[in-house]
């Protein structure tokens, strides 16, 4: 009897917490397709707000994808070899390097953005291009890629695999291509999902680094929250959900699959 009571009250509590998180999202989704949010859903269902968002903000969505995939390409090209080197070398220097590249996780994005602005703000062409935002995203997401790949290396004794490929005559580059990268794939994939998801949603850095001509999706969101009617802002948020939720689900499934292995 008492157990039943405890269970029920815990369940109700958890349901309340869940609804605190979910209800606003549902409100936002429904507001995005409602003719008039003030009058409620009975005013009719429409896609006009979504269409309007697309008209106004298609550029930001496109740029966000460009930056996300450019960030991914760079973190892959830079982060995966680095993770290998840090794992193989080991020792104190590797730990220091790892510590340094992990710092952007501990330091607020605002501070990093300020630092970038103070250093490179005068390089006009660079500062005005989307590459400036890209740099911020790469710095911010790099630790996720490096750590995710290093986590895999720690579980499969990559050092001995590397040595055995070497004993068969493979050059360092061949080993990297044939043995290291294929066996790091789970970590590379997990890191990639993380990097794309984070880059698509990054605001703190991006807000400081963007220009009127280099607006990403979250910048557009903030813009619409400040200046558009609620239905448009909601429709825009709806588009963001549609983009980000498959990534989140993929990440979740992937984590579960890894946990089962």
């Amino acid at each position, binding site marked *: 009897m008492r157990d039943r009571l405890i269970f029920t009250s815990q369940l109700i509590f958890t349901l309340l917490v869940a609804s605190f998180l979910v209800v606003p999202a549902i409100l936002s989704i429904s507001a995005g397709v409602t003719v008039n949010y003030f009058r409620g859903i009975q005013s009719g269902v429409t896609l006009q707000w979504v269409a309007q968002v697309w008209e106004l903000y298609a550029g930001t969505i496109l740029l966000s994808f460009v930056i996300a995939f450019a960030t991914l390409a760079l973190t892959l090209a830079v982060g995966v070899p*680095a993770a290998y080197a840090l794992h193989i070398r080991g020792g104190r220097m590797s730990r220091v390097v790892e510590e340094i590249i992990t710092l952007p996780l501990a330091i607020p994005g605002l501070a990093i953005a300020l630092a970038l602005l*103070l250093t490179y703000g005068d390089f006009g062409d660079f500062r005005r291009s989307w590459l400036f935002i890209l740099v911020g995203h790469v710095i911010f997401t790099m630790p996720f890629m490096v*750590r995710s790949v290093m986590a895999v290396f720690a579980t499969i004794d990559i050092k001995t695999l590397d040595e055995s490929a070497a004993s068969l005559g493979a050059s360092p580059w061949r080993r990297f291509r044939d043995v290291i990268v294929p066996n790091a794939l789970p970590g590379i994939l997990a890191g990639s999902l993380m990097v794309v998801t984070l880059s698509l949603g990054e605001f703190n850095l991006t807000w400081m680094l963007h220009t009127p001509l280099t607006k990403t999706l979250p910048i557009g969101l903030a813009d619409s929250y400040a200046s558009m009617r609620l239905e448009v802002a909601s429709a825009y948020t709806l588009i963001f959900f549609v983009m980000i939720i498959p990534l989140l689900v993929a990440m979740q499934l992937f984590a579960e699959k890894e946990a089962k292995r």
Partner: protein
Amino acid sequence: MSHRSFVWLCLLPLAVVTAAFFLLPMARLVVTGAGGPQGLAGYLAILTEPRYRATLINTVLLAAATTIVTLIVATIAGMFLQRHRFPGRAVLIAMLTFPLAFPGVVVGFMIILLAGRQGLIGDFSNRLFGEKLVFAYSIYGLFLGYLYFSIPRVILTIMAAVQKLDIGLEEAARSLGAGPWAVQRDVVLPALAPAFVASGAIAFATAMGAFGTAFTLATNIDVLPMLIYTEFTLAANFSISAALSVGLGIITWFILALARSFSGSAVAAAG
């Protein structure tokens, strides 16, 4: 090419990127912070200038409150979800964790939809008491927003920690005559302490540095990130904003480093 030089070559791009776009700018930030009219004393302004000090205290209190409430909420929910199996559990977990990657701006908007001028809470209170309850744009709205993005993260950590808990410890305590509350107090909660420290530090550091939510809820909230932003963009006070952000960076880094040395696991803030 020897293996040694190949390994160095692998590390080179990271070294270049990190040096050029992180270390150099951070050094520049630190130098700029000392470049104001007060020189190095600019770094003390965060403590001596009453307005900055009040903001700092505000921010710390808000982050601490967020951390404590999040830990309590997440522990109750996380323990419940990990210890019971019932239909719909997976859906409930998904609901509790999906805001994980929402940027601060979106979280801010969620709070506006809940407690803003056209929000759900105001709507209800209007119907019930004839008065519209609107608090999204106050410190309470910000607090709610910080809870919104902290809860999913902390729940995940707590659930993982509860899963790793050795059920034998609880059974041993019960065999020695401990009642349910004593078991929780003497066995379960102490065993979860490292998870509390780790996830609490993340929640605290994230709340200290969160900018997007405060920005969206805007108007009149004095928290450190907003102060830095306004000093930089509106007042063009580069040295003060640099000094303040170095201070903020040191605080968050220090909290995380402290938690890591205590709990021994990797701790990082994000968002």
